[in-house]
């Protein structure tokens, strides 16, 4: 599938350090191997459904690395969709927890065996619960951003979603609420455009050439980048975040990405060889620039593959939730989010 890529204007082309490139590569591989493990678990009956982000690592990993991580409005809020695994690993999430959610164990820290794979939730890192309905996160993002504007720090709100979902009204709500004159909000609005919504291609569903074209009318700075290149992504995200953090205004970043295992397990979750593979491309670059050898790279992949295979076996033995657990947490007993906000002195 051909990718429409604009030259990332306003983004410096300053070289990234080899250490950073290696760190990104490491996380990208880890994220990919994790998705492949999750897919396998589902196929083997160790989970009911898979959805995730293989093919988006060159964007999701740099995004996670650039997050100002912590709890409360001084830190960044993340309103992710179900393709954010790379971002979570870059934040420091334990991949074994993702296996637990796939196996819906009681030990799943994200939902206690209640929700599908890739539905993360980490309050201590401001990762709000991922929910399945497309685009609702874009209606909530202005709320956390308002709190941050008020808090006066550098914290920003980051919201991500796919291309097809931008047809929902909440995407428009996000553009409108974040750009009201005199009330602009510090939101980094991200769309990862894989040019599909399940089986429906981009063409024929969109009047706009690029989704990011929709920002202009609202005076929102907007940019479309090649999200398959981690260096481009890193620089574009960093510069967009700098703008949002400092100006306290929205930025709309569209990243063209691949969907490497199709939509989800419902569509088979098989490798799609026609799509660009950001890891393969990055490996060629790293070898070419003599930053990593092929041997070192395949060693890394083998290491993660083995680790996660072992972990998946251990997870299989962990307890399932009990029937009566359904009644837990219907209501909260205390105001946990309020405490966090006060702890960080932000409200």
């Amino acid at each position, binding site marked *: 599938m051909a990718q429409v890529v604009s030259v990332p204007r306003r983004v410096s082309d300053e070289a990234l350090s080899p250490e950073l490139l290696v760190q990104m590569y490491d996380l990208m591989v880890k994220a990919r191997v994790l998705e492949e493990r999750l897919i396998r678990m589902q196929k083997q009956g160790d989970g009911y459904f898979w959805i995730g982000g293989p093919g988006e690592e060159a964007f999701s990993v740099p995004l996670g690395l650039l997050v100002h991580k912590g709890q409360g409005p001084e830190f960044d809020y993340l309103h992710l969709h179900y393709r954010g695994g790379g971002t979570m690993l870059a934040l420091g999430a334990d991949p074994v927890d993702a296996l637990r959610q796939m196996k819906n164990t009681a030990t799943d820290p994200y939902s206690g065996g209640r929700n599908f794979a890739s539905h993360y*939730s980490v309050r201590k890192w401001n990762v709000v619960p991922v929910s399945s309905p497309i685009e609702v996160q874009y*209606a909530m*993002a202005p709320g956390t951003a*308002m709190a941050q504007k*008020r808090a006066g720090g550098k914290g920003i709100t980051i919201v991500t979603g796919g291309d097809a979902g931008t047809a929902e009204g909440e995407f428009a709500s996000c553009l409108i609420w974040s750009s009201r004159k005199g009330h602009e909000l510090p939101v980094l609005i991200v769309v990862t455009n894989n040019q599909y919504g399940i089986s429906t291609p981009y063409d024929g569903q969109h009047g706009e050439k690029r989704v990011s074209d929709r920002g202009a009318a609202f005076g929102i700075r907007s940019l479309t980048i090649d999200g398959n290149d981690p260096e481009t992504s890193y620089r574009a995200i960093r510069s967009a975040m700098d703008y949002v953090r400092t100006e306290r205004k929205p930025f709309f970043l569209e990243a063209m990405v691949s969907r490497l295992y199709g939509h989800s397990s419902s569509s088979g979750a098989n490798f799609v060889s026609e799509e660009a593979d950001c890891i393969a491309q990055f490996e060629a670059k790293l070898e070419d620039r003599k930053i990593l050898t092929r041997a070192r790279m395949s060693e890394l992949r083998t290491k993660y593959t083995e680790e996660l295979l072992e972990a998946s076996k251990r997870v299989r033995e962990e307890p399932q939730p009990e029937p009566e657990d359904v009644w837990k947490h219907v209501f909260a007993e*205390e105001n946990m989010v*309020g405490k966090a906000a*006060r702890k960080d002195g932000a409200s």
Partner: protein
Amino acid sequence: MATFVQAVRMALHVGEERLGVTDIFGEDIGAPLGGVFTQTQGLRTAWNSPLDERGIVGSAIGLALAGQKPVAEIQFCDYAFNTIDLLKLAGAMCWSSNGDWNCPMVLMTPVGAGIHGSIYHSHSFDAQATRLPGWKIVMPSTPRDAYGLLLSAIMDPNPVMFLAPKALLRQKAQSPEEDVPGVPSDDRELSKMIDAPLGDRSKWRPRWPNTPDLFVPLGEARVVREGCDATVVTYGRHVHVCAKACAELEAEKIDVELIDLRTLHPYDWTAIVKSVKKTGRVLFVNEDTEITNFGEHLVRRTVDELFYELHAPPKVIAGKHLPGVGLADNLEKASVPQQDEIRDALRNLARHEP
């Protein structure tokens, strides 16, 4: 005596000054109007949102997740039916994250008929609201309860919906017990203090009376009048309609117990059980449409748990299963419960021979 809407305003003032409310927002909520019912006049944290109910609910969730305390308003509950997915998400936030997050927001919205509001200013929302697990739902019938329940709603760590019966908004407390404590006894005095003047309001500042931290607990019904011949359980404006029906029956020596549920979820089952065990006859009244109605839930639970205590079949009087409430007086009256049919139903219940 304070009106219902003044009570709401004073509660919101206490909320923003003493209980941590950070945002009171919705359409036309901010200055100069202060709400289409004047409910938010003079409040420090009130602001006008875009005309976008989905954005309002979404932003309230976001604010709540970021540790703020938002009180959001949908201008009329008739315009909340496109936000039910988001309301469900707010109610699911704690449960679906297995207790990781809570979502402490308050959503206010005016409900019900009785003011010739025609099709789109007459909807009820209690049936919908009680279908939202994870939410607490209140619907006061007096200024005092409006004040005290709103304060409790603000302090609760969960999403709480505050349904305000439209027809009661301008109604004054009918007795000192229904009034907000601490307001001046002279109504004009109170009005001068906290009602925005007509004309230019740019210089106006309210003077707030010193009202206490009165928390009416969520989940506690109020026995409006005691009786032994039958029980009527209701809430909102129908508390007053039922009270009048009860007064009519008193003349016939029929003594009806009237329960104002006040909180619809979690509701005060204990109070209902106690009364039904005493009277053996119960009528549930509300004005939402009658198929898949909250009163029908209460009947179900009554026959489930109290079948052999009943001396007569339990009844529901609710709104008719119609696409809307019509504008003409005859149409409105034929669509939502009226005093005479409530009176007749109670009489039948009380006189029913098993």
